């Protein structure tokens, strides 16, 4: 079974490599045709050079470290806060109804639109960026907590009550695990909102981080650096979602017996 998995992975890798080769080929072709001036669309080689550059002077790694650090802090605050609000919505029905429409509205609110508010309220600093990240992801956690718990098949709760669970033990041993598969989906969505938000916030209100590297590239008309940062952002987003969150979701789903 292990071996089969390895082969599957090799297959995937081959596919990805092919896709990448074709992509870079087209890019190179467009470059050679000279449709855009070199400064607007550099060759893949120039971008690779920019990459080497920001890697060798550690700009990239520092940027990644700072961005991910902020993101993790903001996202965990979002989870804690979002879950707390979600539980309160379950507990207090009236609040739950009102809050769920309110949250739904805020869910589609563009994260960038929080930036001016945050700068004026909190400042042009780390806390301000965290605020944008939290506001952009907390409502997806809230809504998912609320709906996950509401949609638990009642039979699980009945069975747990029947065997003596109540109050906190009912919550911990039945409510939470029964809601987990659906909670994970909300967390994954919240993560993607947080990721969008932090890059946007860093472009506009940071002097460090991945978003900042991107905006420096723009200021110095260094398209090589812009594209290199974009590729980094793409890759990190992909890795976190596929290797971490998607795997987690798959694992939970198979454990819970959901196809």
């Amino acid at each position, binding site marked *: 079974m292990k071996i089969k998995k390895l082969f599957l992975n090799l297959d995937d890798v081959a596919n990805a490599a092919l896709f990448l080769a074709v992509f870079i080929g087209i890019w190179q072709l467009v470059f050679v045709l000279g449709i855009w001036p070199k400064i607007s669309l550099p060759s893949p080689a120039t971008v690779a050079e920019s990459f080497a550059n920001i890697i060798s002077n550690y700009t990239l790694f520092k940027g990644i470290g700072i961005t991910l650090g902020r993101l993790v802090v903001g996202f965990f605050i979002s989870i804690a806060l979002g879950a707390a609000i979600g539980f309160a919505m379950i507990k207090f029905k009236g609040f739950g109804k009102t809050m769920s429409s309110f949250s739904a509205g805020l869910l589609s609110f563009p994260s960038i639109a929080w930036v001016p508010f945050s700068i004026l309220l909190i400042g042009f600093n780390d806390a301000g960026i965290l605020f944008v990240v939290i506001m952009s992801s907390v409502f997806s956690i809230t809504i998912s907590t609320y709906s996950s718990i509401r949609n638990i098949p009642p*039979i699980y709760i009945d069975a747990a009550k029947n065997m003596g669970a109540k109050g906190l033990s009912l919550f911990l*041993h039945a409510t939470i695990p029964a809601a987990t598969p659906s909670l994970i989906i909300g967390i994954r969505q919240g993560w993607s909102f947080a990721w969008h938000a932090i890059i946007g916030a860093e472009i506009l209100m940071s002097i460090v981080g991945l978003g900042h590297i991107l905006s420096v590239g723009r200021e110095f008309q260094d398209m090589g650096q812009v594209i290199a940062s974009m590729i980094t952002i793409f890759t990190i987003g992909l890795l976190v979602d596929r290797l971490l969150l998607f795997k987690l979701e798959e694992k939970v789903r198979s454990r819970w017996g959901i196809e």
Partner: protein
Amino acid sequence: MTKLEAKNIEKYFDHDGQKLQALGGIDLKVNDGDFVCLVGPSGCGKSTFLRIVAGLDRPDNGEVLLDGKPVIETGPDRILVFQEGALFPWLKVIDNVEFGLKIAGIPKSERSEISKRYLDMMQLTRFAESYTYQLSTGMKQRVAIARALVLDPDVLLMDEPFAALDAQTRDLLLVEMQLIWERTKKTILFVTHNVAEATMLGNRVAVFTNRPSTIKKEIVIDYRRPRISEDENLSKYQQQILAELRPEVKANV
């Protein structure tokens, strides 16, 4: 001595704004250590009745008395084996079986000892570490029974627990169930739509009418145990029950 008494239990449900009366006044007295089977047309309210006795639902009228005291909530003295099994997919078989013990705060070593005994009895030992989606319907149902038995309740409420089993497993469990009952002297309320099953298990068989249901007739089965499914002598009881049941099932379709 009366262990359990249902007095004029009525239950209504809301169906698209219309009131539907499921239970039309159930009266039932069950002695300590008795084995009573409940049969009736499908949809007449047997599950509803068991849920009320378990304390999971409240009746709209009447009351259930356990040892003379009104039932108002669930309790470890009455455990229901759900028709759907209702196992927890996030737990291994063994953790499903130990769930109630864990909730009751029983230490790990003691829990393992108890669960081992019942896993053994239900022939589940090999599957202790499996997750429930890996089990057949019959095995799931056995887990559900083991999960109830470990709690050693005074009253065992069983909602068609054998309905989804293959004939061989069912025959095995029908005998096993009688042995468990004789050994533990638990009070058992057992819902089934299988008349042969009812005559094998019950000291008494209560026949429900159609909705709004009441208990139409109680048939006493005073016959030696353990009873086996091939026993021809049970057929006269089966005929008696079927005679009561047939008009109800007809009215139902």
